[in-house]
């Protein structure tokens, strides 16, 4: 038979709703896709399924009572959320916290970062078909959650910081237990890397997928590992040091190509640097009070203040507006890193396949709790 081949099936664009109930969307994210076969022509993230009005709740409560709400933003790394909020309020009130409190805060925050990156690695690898890392990473994550539990009684929603310091000191034996874990942890990171870094399938699925240039990344407001993966050396802990990050020594890892693989390498190295920070903090942990001398009822001057911390996902900022002698925020806006990072999803997946969308959602490391607030 001659003549051009007739297509045997319909070649019209197909619309596909990816999520909100899909294991690879890491929560209740919905992506409205326009597909040509397997190829993505357009992707539109639809969010808001987890909106709880956190910012409205902040306006109703005294400063210290807002802290439990922050736990529920990025529920995977609660310490950095607490830290962001208390650092902002301390800036507003002009409070300096005692060094012991600052060091313990940093230990908690870095443990939270490791725990968050371990969860990211486990789910990201499962999404791309590698189930084994999950069993290893969750072994270590469990130890970190046990440490949190020993410190404050909670494993995820820690509520572990107060304006002016900390509610509790470290219990007996905690530092030794943490030191033991940190001693062993770098070898575990090597274990994960053995499974993935030079794995041919892993590289095929991640190298050159979801590429974004440094200029584009800045234009889209990316922060955290997605920005550093594109080669921008920028970390809030370095540029606007809070607590005592200016006293510890650590590197800011960056990538080169801005693809999924580089972001993976950046996060792996960040875990190693977090171990370094924790070890330095524990070596230098000073004695002394854990709470600054603050009034029982916190009253802020009139003004607006923004302060941010380097959360595992990027720059987590709190913008607080107060009225004269206000004992609660008049307005508190959260600048969630995942929200801004997710915005670039359509650019990252442009022209890729549906399977790569899963890789890109994984590499952005989003948490819907802080996107929807």
């Amino acid at each position, binding site marked *: 038979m001659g003549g051009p081949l007739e297509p045997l099936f319909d070649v019209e664009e197909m619309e596909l709703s990816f999520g909100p109930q899909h294991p690879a969307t890491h929560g209740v994210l919905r992506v409205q896709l326009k597909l040509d076969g397997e190829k993505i022509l357009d992707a539109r993230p639809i*969010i*808001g399924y987890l*909106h709880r*009005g956190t*910012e*409205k*709740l902040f306006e*109703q409560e005294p400063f210290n009572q807002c802290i439990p709400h922050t736990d529920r933003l990025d529920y995977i790394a609660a310490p950095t959320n607490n830290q962001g909020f208390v650092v902002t309020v301390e*800036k*507003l*009130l*002009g*409070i*300096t*916290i*005692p060094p012991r409190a600052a060091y313990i805060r940093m230990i908690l925050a870095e443990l939270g970062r490791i725990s968050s990156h371990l969860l990211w690695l486990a789910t990201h690898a499962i999404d791309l078909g590698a189930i084994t890392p999950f069993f290893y990473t969750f072994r270590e994550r469990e130890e970190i959650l046990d440490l949190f539990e020993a410190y404050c009684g909670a494993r995820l929603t820690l509520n572990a910081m*107060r304006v*002016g*310091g900390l*509610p*509790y*000191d*470290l*219990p*007996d034996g905690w530092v030794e237990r943490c030191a033991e874990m940190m001693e062993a942890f770098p070898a575990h990171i090597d274990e994960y890397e053995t499974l993935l870094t030079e794995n041919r399938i892993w590289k095929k699925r991640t190298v050159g997928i979801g590429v974004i240039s440094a200029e584009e990344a*800045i*234009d*889209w*407001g990316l922060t955290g590992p997605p920005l550093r993966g594109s080669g921008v050396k920028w970390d809030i802990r370095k*540029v*606007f040091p809070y607590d005592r990050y200016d006293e510890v020594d650590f590197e800011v890892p960056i990538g080169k190509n801005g693809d999924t693989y580089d972001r993976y390498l950046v996060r792996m190295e960040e875990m190693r640097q977090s171990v370094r920070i924790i070890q330095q903090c524990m070596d230098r942990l000073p*004695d*002394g*009070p*854990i*709470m*600054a*001398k*603050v*009034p*029982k*009822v916190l*009253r802020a*001057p009139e*003004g*607006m*203040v*923004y302060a941010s911390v380097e959360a595992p996902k990027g*720059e987590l*900022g709190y*913008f607080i507006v107060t009225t004269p002698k206000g004992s609660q925020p*008049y*307005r508190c*806006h959260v*600048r969630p890193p995942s929200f*801004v990072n997710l*915005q*670039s999803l359509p650019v990252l997946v442009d022209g890729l396949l549906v399977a790569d969308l899963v890789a890109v959602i994984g590499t952005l490391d989003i948490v819907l709790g802080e996107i*929807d*607030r």
Partner: protein
Amino acid sequence: MSDDKPTPSPEEQPGAAKAAPASQEEAPPKPPWEDKPVPPVPSDAADDPDVAALAAGVEDAVVEAVAFADQVTVTIPREKVLEACRFLKEERGFSFLVDLTAVDWPEREEGRFDVIHWLHRFEDNRRLRLRTVVAEGEPVASVTGVWKTANWLEREAYDMFGIHFEGHPNLERILTWEGFNGHPLRKDFPVEGIDTGAAIYPDVYPQGGGPMVDGEEKEGA
């Protein structure tokens, strides 16, 4: 207020008391954490280099400039938003929009909302805040053409406050859904929420008669 007492926080554990005596041995100049906190005081920031450049580069752009807690806030007129943002990005290197949000002051005469742009410059890690007073129903220029980040942040401000951003490519609700009645972060929006059933299931919940009305659970809710 009991400023003179050393933080009798109810959550404090016995472990904390152990650590306290060490700090009392400190020499007379008390460490800052044992002193009364000193809140920041606002000051005039008209001579800040970026503010001065903005005032010189864009006509009538600077209404007021205040420094508070090492952060400079410039109040700009509503008509100049786009021009000022362009200028700051292109001439002053503010290539990064960190945050965009709004604040509601329902009682204020000159305009109900503050729209806040929070900019960052990488070269020397400087930040600058722009504040624009917008009255209810007045549009403000969208800066999506200047920084792409603004897209979702403006949608959020529109959703939460009902501020219209003129020139936005896709100004839709983002955290609530299309058809949601009201703007949740306005001060007059009730904390306990509104009857949202009416918009989704008009046959089950007639307008104003959903499960949350008067705090009474409605039958079939």
